[in-house]
């Protein structure tokens, strides 16, 4: 009996220790951290990480976190590593779901965090305010950025500091089914509306054009085209400005002919041949091709609004940012990786293998890239497209903006009253950030 009790107490003790041992995991990480830090320090001491590594035959690893398509990242990695083979630098991409949250946790953790990240530019303000990013110009020269399309460079600029190097970008396009669309695609939004009225039968479930009409990103071409805005550079929301109200009112008549506007609904309608056209991004293309649709593409910039302006969609620029500790400890290796990724070769590979619109202007000189209808449509759109705002306050604007659009387009609410209501909600949400 005593033996049993002793054994029980011993087991309890072991279990208690086991619980606490979980906290001991850091020791190993700490050692790893020390090793990495030592490596970093050595590299920094030599003031030439890659050079030192090259001389000693060691390869410097540069780790990039992303939250995108792994095949796209593989294309970038393969092409960049080919160029870096002689430099003893190797770049690897690691997928992290919920990248923003991950960087908030690991952005200052040299041992466990990445050296760089590749993500849409609109979260830049958040990371810059957290103080985890180094200006990209500390690592690469202006000549690298000089080859990029101006809109893509502008997207990576926050408070007059260039933090990001663009890689590729996405904008909305007008995609149509060549077998269903009758005649030429109109040049003006009014002609497009007339076509929609004539070719839509909601009860039968057939539509001329479908769009996510209550999603801010998809209504932005109208809002920007009318001179309105969701939020300006100084973090002032603009949901109740006359221009934004005019744009939302104008979009309302299109929305009435565009089904529910939910992503799954509009995509399924187009892929099943129940809608002749869809306003969507390049991410839809693979599904459309699988559905066997003969796809035609037109830039949204080719549509003129009644005020004479072209539709001006938002653009999302997939860009690379450098973490502060990497800029300090691996500067040369990081610079070499960035220069390789910025090259026209990577841009051409991205366009030809992954159907992405490269940020590097020189890539468009390639014959195959120039023959790609979708990529060239995006390049045309890049001239009027506006980069999504990259200030942190934008993250709380999607909710009020989309609530406003849904209230107007789905619940039949009054535009002016709803605009006032959601402007106030936006102001509260921005104040809550402080």
């Amino acid at each position, binding site marked *: 009996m005593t033996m049993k009790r002793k054994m029980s107490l011993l087991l309890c003790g072991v279990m208690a220790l*086991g619980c606490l041992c979980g906290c001991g995991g850091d020791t190993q990480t700490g050692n790893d951290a020390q090793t990495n830090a030592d490596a970093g320090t050595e590299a920094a001491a030599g003031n030439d990480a890659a050079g030192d590594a090259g001389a000693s035959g060691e390869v410097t690893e540069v780790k990039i976190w992303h939250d995108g398509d792994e095949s796209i990242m593989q294309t970038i990695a393969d092409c960049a590593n080919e160029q870096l083979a002689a430099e003893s630098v190797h770049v690897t991409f690691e997928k992290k779901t919920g990248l923003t949250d991950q960087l908030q946790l690991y952005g200052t953790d040299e041992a466990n965090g990445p050296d760089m990240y590749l993500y849409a530019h609109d979260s830049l303000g958040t990371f810059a305010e957290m103080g985890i990013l180094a200006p990209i110009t500390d690592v690469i020269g202006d000549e690298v950025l000089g080859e990029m399309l101006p809109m893509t460079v502008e997207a990576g600029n926050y408070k007059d500091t260039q933090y990001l190097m663009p890689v590729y970008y996405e904008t909305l396009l007008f995609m149509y089914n060549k077998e269903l669309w009758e005649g030429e695609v109109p040049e003006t939004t009014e002609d497009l509306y007339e076509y929609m009225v004539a070719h839509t039968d909601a009860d039968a479930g057939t539509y001329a054009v479908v769009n996510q009409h209550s999603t801010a990103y998809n209504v932005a071409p109208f809002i920007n085209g009318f001179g309105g805005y969701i939020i300006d550079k100084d973090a002032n929301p603009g949901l109740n400005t006359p221009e934004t109200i005019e744009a939302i009112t104008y979009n309302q008549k299109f929305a009435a002919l565009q089904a529910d506007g*939910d992503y799954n609904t509009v995509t399924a309608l187009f892929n099943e041949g129940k809608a002749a056209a869809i306003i969507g991004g390049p991410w839809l293309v693979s599904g459309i091709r699988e559905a066997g649709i003969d796809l035609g593409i037109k830039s949204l910039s080719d549509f003129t609004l009644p005020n004479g302006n072209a539709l001006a969609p938002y653009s999302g620029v997939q860009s690379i940012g450098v973490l502060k500790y990497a800029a300090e400890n691996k500067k040369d290796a990081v610079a070499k990786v960035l220069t390789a990724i910025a090259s026209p070769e990577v841009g051409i590979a991205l366009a030809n293998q992954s159907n992405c619109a490269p940020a590097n202007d020189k890539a468009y000189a390639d014959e195959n890239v120039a023959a790609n209808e979708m990529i060239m449509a995006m390049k045309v759109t890049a001239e009027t497209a506006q980069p999504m705002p990259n200030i942190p306050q934008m993250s709380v604007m999607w909710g009020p903006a989309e*609530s406003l659009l849904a209230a107007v387009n789905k619940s039949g609410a009054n535009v002016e009253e709803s605009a006032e209501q959601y402007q106030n909600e936006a102001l509260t949400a921005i104040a809550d*950030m402080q």
Partner: protein
Amino acid sequence: MKQRRKLTPYLYSTPAFILIALVIVFPILYTAYISLTNMNLFHWADYEIIGLENYVRALTKVDSGFLSALLVTLLWTVLNMVIQVVAAYFIALGLNREGLKGRRIYKTLLMFPWAMPAYVSILLWRVGIYNTEFGLLNKILVEIGLSKVNFLSTNVPAFLSCMVLNLWMALPFMIMMIDGALQSIDRSYYESAELDGAGFWVKNIHITIPALKGIIAPSVIMTTFTTFKQFDIVYLLTMQKGAYSGATLQTVITYAHQNAFVSNNYGLSSAVSIIIFFLIMVFSVFTNRGVKEESNE
């Protein structure tokens, strides 16, 4: 010796205490600490203690929709629980009817909604049942010559749609609990009652319900909590990011999420969390007291 005996149970429980402290107590205490600071995006590393300011901010938000969210939550909880218990009771009675064939098959089928992951069920209902283009309900409406209806675009239909889905998802658990409890009632009570001439309602009111009360009370309490803090259904059906349906339905939890957790203001979010934590604690004290009084009777 006596002292040692007193200590021994605590020693045996030490591993469990450590685990509870690490997994439950520490996060609550840390959240309480963060709620007293100004930790947010603009004070990421240099945050400092600001006292009860976040609580004042959270509570002064009461006028901007919190009260209506609380009322919606109470209505949601009461309606769901009443319908759930009553419907589950009668379904369980049906399943226990003597001579019912294929009982096991029905029970297995009834468990299906409960076994499915909530996220999948909700999205299936959003597209498969309520969607204007592909939803079953609208297909039926169009077939009988009526116009399509957007069930999720305004508050009342959206509330009812959410409630129907919640019942579909939650009923199996309640049926299972009541079914188990029914089987534990001694058949001799019913036989005696039948000899005295008791009918269906008399047997239910005077035998089944009193016998069930004590047994199903814990599951009713558990389900009440789950229903009160329901988030997934309302959020995914009506306010999923990028897919707002137009309804402005808010429960306490969706309200807290929308007002505090999207702002990257961790101090304020923590204060809201602690307030909700206390609300649920108060709620649980009342329900536990109710159960105690009932079992004492």
